[in-house]
């Protein structure tokens, strides 16, 4: 491997911050009105305010790459990693095409992508580099990146969500996600990067199956059921109290009981990469989007 940016600068690679950064496309469309047909009425605004505060705090964090794992790039054979220098296309949400059609230009830190690929392979994980320039980046990755940095100032490394659960139990899938997290950390350290990690997922994830007549009718929005709300609050409490290892240990039950999007492995991956932070996560917002539970939580540590 050639000398990395971080090594050249004589710095030590490290994860400087991590954030649970859910990706409801509903949060972006009001920010992007020319591409969308409804007139924004500030639905789900409290979540946007949360992201606004996260961005404000991240402004004082020195990071040079964003590493994100999204549930919406689903790969049934191993974890795949974007590894082409630049992706530029139009992302249309297959579920809410009326809300989200986003032109993006994404620079990729290919060196770090290759390093993660190498470290994961040495850890016994199946990974593959995605080098097809025509590939369309998933909307989960785009929403989480946009909401944390609408200017796209730093390059990105995007990881897919490995879905081999035809074979593996939730526990084994979780172990694989944790191993991927450790490999990610090792690659970041080896390449001298200062990385912001994004876990792009909601908590409880049972959708409504119908829509209100007014797209942003907040009088209709609520968590799908009380059980899921209780689980969301339990998870948030653990994050706010720095009990992240306990949260991850609870994850199989959380996933099962609350039908969570954490089954994508993204939160487990990030917590393992950050070696299970014990400092309190900062809760920036919690809100429901078509019944799902979405928390924005940051661990910005001492880097601010």
């Amino acid at each position, binding site marked *: 491997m050639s000398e990395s940016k971080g090594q050249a600068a004589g710095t030590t690679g490290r994860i400087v911050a991590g954030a649970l950064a859910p990706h409801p496309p509903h949060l972006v469309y009001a920010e992007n009105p020319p591409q969308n047909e409804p007139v924004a009425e500030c639905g789900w605004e409290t979540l946007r305010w949360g992201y606004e505060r996260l961005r404000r705090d991240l402004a004082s964090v020195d990071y040079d790459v964003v590493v994100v794992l999204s549930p919406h*790039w*689903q*790969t*049934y*054979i*191993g974890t*795949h990693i974007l590894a082409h220098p630049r992706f530029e*296309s*139009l*992302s*249309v949400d*297959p*579920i*809410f*095409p*009326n809300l989200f*059609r986003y032109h993006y230009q994404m620079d990729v830190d290919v060196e770090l992508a290759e390093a993660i690929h190498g470290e994961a392979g040495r850890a016994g994980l*199946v990974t*593959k580099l*995605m*080098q*097809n320039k*025509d*590939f*369309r980046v*998933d909307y989960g990755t785009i929403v989480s990146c946009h909401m944390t940095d609408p200017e796209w100032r730093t390059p990105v490394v995007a990881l*897919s969500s490995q*879905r*081999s*659960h*035809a*074979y593996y139990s939730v526990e084994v899938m979780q172990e694989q996600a944790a191993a991927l997290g450790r490999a990610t950390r090792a690659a970041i350290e080896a390449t001298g990067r200062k990385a912001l990690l994004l876990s792009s997922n909601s908590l409880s994830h049972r*959708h*409504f*199956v*119908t*829509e*209100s*007549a007014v797209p942003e009718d907040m*009088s*209709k929005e*609520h968590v*799908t059921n009380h059980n899921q709300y209780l689980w969301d609050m339990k998870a948030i409490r653990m994050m706010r109290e720095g009990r992240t290892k306990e949260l991850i240990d609870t994850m199989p039950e959380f996933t099962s009981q609350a039908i969570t999007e954490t089954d994508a492995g993204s939160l487990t991956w990030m917590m393992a990469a950050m070696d299970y932070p014990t400092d309190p996560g900062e809760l920036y917002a919690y809100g429901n989007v*078509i*019944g799902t539970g979405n928390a924005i939580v940051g661990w910005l540590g001492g880097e601010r």
Partner: protein
Amino acid sequence: MSAGGIIKGLIVPGLPQPLLAPEQNEGWGRIRAAFEAAREEILACEPDLLLIYSVMWPSVIGHQIQADPNPKWVHVDELFHDLGSIPYDFKMDADFAAAFKDAAIARNLHARTVSYYGFPIDTGSVVALKLLTPNNEVPACIVSSNVYSDRAETVVLGKAAADAAAATGKRVVAVVVTTLSNRLFTDFIDPADDHIHSPKDDEWNQKMLEFLRAGRLEDVAQLSREIHRQIRVHKVVNFKPMWWLSAAMGQHNNYTGRVYDYAALYGTGAAVVSLTPSASGVGDKEYDEEDVEVYSGNRNVLGGPEGGPAPTPPKPLQSTVTAVEAMAGVMSTDAAPKPVGAYPHARRVGDLLYLSGIGPRQPGTDAIPGGPIRDADGSPRDYDIRAQTQAVIDNIRIILEAAGSSLEKVVDITVFLVDMDRDFKGYNEVYAETFKPIQATRTTVAVRALPTPIAVEFKVVALL
């Protein structure tokens, strides 16, 4: 207009190897050849449309139907991206998509069309269309596979597809994009080493193919949950494409089944199978309590008021009488709006014909001329009592004539209005235009509500 309907069914896999890399594995090449043979069979029956149900297009909010008349893109599979890009330029039937959406809504499903530049058409649909209609010889329509849809809902969606084919008069080939066993390997393989993941999966695949070869589609559909338990994985819940296909094609086992080929695609079981309706087969399906006409699941999760009674399904607009029950003079006709309960349109007693209460809903669509009296949230809406009244009279005429009677033979009418003060004058004027010369006896009463959001209903007795 020609007689529309689902004229053939097709089962095809959606992984991209047969399209992009048929030369890398003998089985992948055979599946490619099977696609091409199936294409010839399709073209020979001169269809108007390929209707694709793809398990690789999941939806969350109801059922989505592709309605972009000319989607263009360069597609890359999210898993097998190293096989290359797939440019496409498809021809879609937007009118059929709209008719399918309307038919689905009429059966109380949540459905919408999507027509957006750059909408991500799934790999399975892209592969099927590229191989089955490479030069857009036949236009297409694609419907999503809702992740929350249970059996009853999926069956209703299949019936809505048949409704749309009948209503548009189009000859439709229904295509389901799905593997049989769906266990991919957990690591990348040398293509030459591809094989069905396990003997158990292979045995179940062979059993399914045996059924399909014998034309037993409904039997496969009824076994779907068991098949899923044995050889499926999360992504294709309960092997639901067979529910959809069987419902769309009439829920029976009377087909000529043709298995073009069967091979492994990265561990999964891939087969190309055609099913052509035939006059006979292995026999009727078993009783099925999940065979429903209208979806009635509780979707009231938004907190609004419960809606009114579920609407009844549409029937082809060009239909005439399709069922005259032998039992005790009972008769119903598909040309009139379907009853909302367990009663016929009419019953003969001696020389008299007694009609059930008849409202203004339109046969085939359940639309209410003049508009419903309340919206889905229960909020009152403005409506035209004159248009509703005329529609009631038209429906009565259809039923009477189907039973061998006529409006001129009506002897007694009871009229129900939900708002006497508002509507009596308008209804009375329209009534007079038809019934003044007939001079039937009449009683008009006010009622609090009728079973659907309508303002007027007639109860008629006529001579035969």
